[in-house]
């Protein structure tokens, strides 16, 4: 018996000390622009396709759209994790690389997505300082607010926007927190010090189990212990059976409003960060949802990013499920804490996702192929920003940093544009000239060209995310 124990110990330490190296912090805490070598030969695409870099650079680009004449427009976010504020911009981009400013926003980024529809642009304004908004922009650059005060002060913002053929603007609204408990991780993000009372708002009434989590009081000098429950401000306790009133607009939801403005309506809820929205060729709405992180007061291990087909009126499981899986089993247990169920009753059985992406891959922008010339008609193309490890959890190797293709019938995911080499990762760590952090994708009007927005370099030094200014760019994929 003793022998076995010694052997076991030896084995464990051998393995741990050996080649299983977890990814640590990297890079420097500076926002200054860095040189970004660009070489499309460092990227593999499937046989029969080519990828090219378009000239010009962008400052934290996040979205893309195309007008009726085929002009390409890129959105610059004006904010990045790491708490850097710049000017959000909508730019028209010519093939020569020439950029023309169409509209500029205020210090309330990030502008996360844009859609062009019948002569106007619709932009989701992340709203980290003044709340989220959906903006309508004329081709001359006149901005009007269709809705404001969306609950967007937290970890995740007002996200993906797409106009449906029904004349409604659909958009995502991310949650304030990782898993419904405001904690030290939100203080580290930067927003909790600004918005001490902010927390997640459910879309409908919910009844709590009264789970509370103890942390030090990051908002006081004394750092005394405080307890925080779900869907309440930092330092507020909840009790079993307590009802939290639902209201609109809410967090972790896909909502919609009429194209000319009006009341916000709920489409579906129980998402975490519904970042990318797109209609499939048959008119169904799909959403990419960034899964839980292993961070904060209620960390969750091993939750993938998910692709859902949106069914109106449905609850999709946050904060107690990852897809159809309950977090309370063995599989989602973080190092020390098992995520207990926060809600006493569920609105419905959460639906299974259409596909499950890499844990921490940050699967974001999405579009569908509609062209038999380009091929893969009906498949979804998803831009993976790439992990922000180790802050989001430990990993053995970089996840994401590429473009993937998804068969939405089978959930089959395959790489479509990925950096060459034996290891995965962003170009800057592979020392190549390929993809850095793809964040949005869009097919041209004829469907024959796929544009990929690359956010640029974002490193993860110990002091928190360090995005590098003006390292963003645009790629173009087409059939040979």
């Amino acid at each position: 018996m003793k022998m076995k124990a010694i052997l076991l110990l030896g084995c464990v330490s051998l393995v741990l000390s050996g080649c299983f190296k977890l990814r640590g912090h990297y890079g420097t805490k500076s926002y200054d622009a860095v040189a970004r070598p660009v070489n499309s030969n460092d990227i593999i695409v499937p046989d029969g396709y080519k990828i090219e870099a378009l000239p010009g650079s962008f400052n934290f680009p996040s979205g893309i759209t195309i007008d009726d004449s085929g002009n390409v427009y890129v959105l610059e976010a004006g904010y990045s994790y790491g708490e850097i504020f710049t000017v959000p911009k909508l730019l028209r981009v010519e093939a020569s690389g020439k950029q023309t400013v169409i509209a500029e926003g205020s210090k309330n980024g990030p502008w996360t997505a844009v859609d062009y529809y019948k002569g106007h642009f619709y932009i989701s304004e992340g709203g980290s300082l003044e709340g989220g908004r959906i903006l309508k922009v004329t081709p001359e650059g006149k901005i009007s607010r269709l809705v404001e005060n969306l609950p967007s002060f937290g970890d995740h913002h007002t996200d993906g926007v797409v106009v449906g053929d029904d004349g409604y603007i659909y958009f995502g609204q991310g949650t304030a927190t990782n898993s419904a408990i405001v904690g030290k991780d939100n203080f580290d993000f930067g927003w909790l010090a600004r918005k001490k009372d902010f927390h997640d708002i459910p879309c409908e009434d919910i009844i709590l189990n009264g789970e509370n989590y103890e942390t030090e009081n990051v908002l006081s000098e004394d750092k005394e212990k405080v307890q925080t429950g779900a869907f309440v401000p930092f330092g507020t306790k909840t009790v079993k059976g307590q009802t939290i009133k639902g209201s609109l607009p809410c967090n972790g939801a896909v909502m919609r409003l009429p194209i000319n403005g009006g009341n916000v309506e709920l489409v579906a809820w129980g998402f975490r960060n519904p970042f990318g929205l797109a209609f499939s060729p048959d008119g169904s709405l799909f959403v990419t949802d960034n899964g839980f992180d292993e961070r904060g007061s209620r960390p969750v291990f091993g939750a993938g990013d998910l692709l859902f087909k949106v069914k109106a009126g449905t609850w999709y499981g946050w904060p107690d499920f990852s897809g159809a899986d309950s977090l309370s089993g063995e599989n989602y247990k973080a190092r020390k804490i098992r995520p207990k169920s926060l809600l006493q009753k569920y609105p419905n059985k959460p639906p299974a996702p259409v596909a499950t992406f890499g844990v921490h891959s940050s699967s974001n922008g999405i579009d569908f192929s509609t062209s038999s010339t380009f091929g893969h008609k009906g498949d979804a193309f998803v831009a993976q920003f790439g992990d922000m490890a180790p802050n989001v959890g430990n990993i053995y190797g970089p996840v994401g940093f590429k473009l993937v293709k998804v068969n939405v019938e089978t959930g089959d995911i395959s790489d479509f544009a990925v950096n060459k080499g034996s290891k995965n990762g962003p170009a800057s760590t592979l020392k190549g000239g390929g993809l850095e952090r793809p964040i949005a994708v869009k097919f041209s009007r004829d469907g024959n060209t796929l544009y990929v927005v690359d956010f640029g370099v974002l490193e993860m030094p110990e002091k928190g995310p360090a995005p590098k200014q003006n390292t963003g760019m645009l790629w173009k994929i087409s059939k040979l």
Partner: protein
Amino acid sequence: MKTRLSVYLIIFMCMGFYLSSCSSRRIKKDMTEISRLDDQVAEGRIIFKNQCQKCHPNGEAGVGPSLNDKKLPSFIIRARIRSRATFLWTGRMPSFSKHEISEKGLDALLAYLKNMEKKDK
């Protein structure tokens, strides 16, 4: 006798685990269209994408270690998929019951994993 056997088993698995974790051969990225795979491998691929992909994306490292650059004996992989006990409960990888992955599904999954190794060039 029984203890002796389990000691050998531990040493054996331990070495396998260690050695497998050290290889760093070049990988060809997996861009094969599923229609080009034979039926069993294709079935295994769908199971992999739905059950394993999130931690071993396309066989590469992620929340779990890479699988496409090493050759673990099939019986160890089978055992690990079915039970956490295989690596002595040291790991974080979930186990999968027959309800989640059938025996036939497991055969297909193994065929897919073997095919993934062949990608290795």
